[in-house]
């Protein structure tokens, strides 16, 4: 009985995790510029990983694998902010530097840029992402 329950619970968690992974991927494709795409990638880093590893932990039961999964989760939670910070910082130090403006001005600017050079920024964002990961 309890086995069956654990089985279904872990299946549900894995399914939810997959859904959030997909959400992150769709967000990376849909969002307009580099920085907002990074937020979408954050979904896969945190909640999706958490759900999938929790699901696997329920399947593993009380064994060595449980502790290993817990360690994996811990390490991911410590390293993923570092990685996204490095990505953001390398963007900040390059062409995609954020201007020091207030929120409203920034929004206006973003809207203008989006309407005029949507195609261009798309291309340069792609290039920046590959650069960032290499750095």
């Amino acid at each position, binding site marked *: 009985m309890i086995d069956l329950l654990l089985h279904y619970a872990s299946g549900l968690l894995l399914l939810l995790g997959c859904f959030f992974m997909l959400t992150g991927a*769709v967000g990376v494709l849909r*969002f307009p510029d580099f920085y907002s795409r990074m937020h979408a990638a954050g*979904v896969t880093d945190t909640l999706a990983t958490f759900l999938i590893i929790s699901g696997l932990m329920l399947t593993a039961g009380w064994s060595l694998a449980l502790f290993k999964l817990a360690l994996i989760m811990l390490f991911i939670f410590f390293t993923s902010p570092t990685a996204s910070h490095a990505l953001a910082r390398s963007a900040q130090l390059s062409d995609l530097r954020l201007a020091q403006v207030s929120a409203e001005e920034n929004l206006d600017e973003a809207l203008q840029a989006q309407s005029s050079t949507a195609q261009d920024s798309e291309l340069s964002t792609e290039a920046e992402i590959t650069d960032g990961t290499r750095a």
Partner: protein
Amino acid sequence: MRYTFCLFAVLAFIWLTNSGHYTPLILTFGLASILFVILIARRMKVVDQDSLPLQLWTTLPGYYIWLLRKIIASNLEVAACVWDGLFSGSFSQTKSASISPCSERIPTSLRSDLGKVLYANSITLTPGTVAIDIDSDSVLVHALTCNGLEELKQGEMEQRIFILTEKNTTSNLPAGQDKQC
């Protein structure tokens, strides 16, 4: 010396959970490698309060549980932004309607390095906000929606970290010494 013992305990735990082989020979190798790592860490002078914040031993888990709730909530918000208007209306309109990316320098009153690291790390860990740059008294934050930025500016997270780290620094030594690792 306390920090060395705690580092030993942490490393031994990691080694034991990752090994799975408990014959005397392998255990000896494990012990040797742990001692080697401690030797290197001591030579690098990184075995101190910043790398092993033992004074947070009791309070940090509570903070992380609060942060986990925060992470789940903001994850759902970002997911809503992603799926918002995907199946209705044209692309270009819905994109600008659901999200409003903005960035701002948020002043912070945290002074200790540990507090700042925790703060920036927590900001980046919650999807929707990323800490890009940090200097002596402010954090440059980029947010997916202006609401997220406003919420951060209200400073609940900062307050919690302030209670966690800076309060302890004043009463650190007397409170920290009787605690065991």
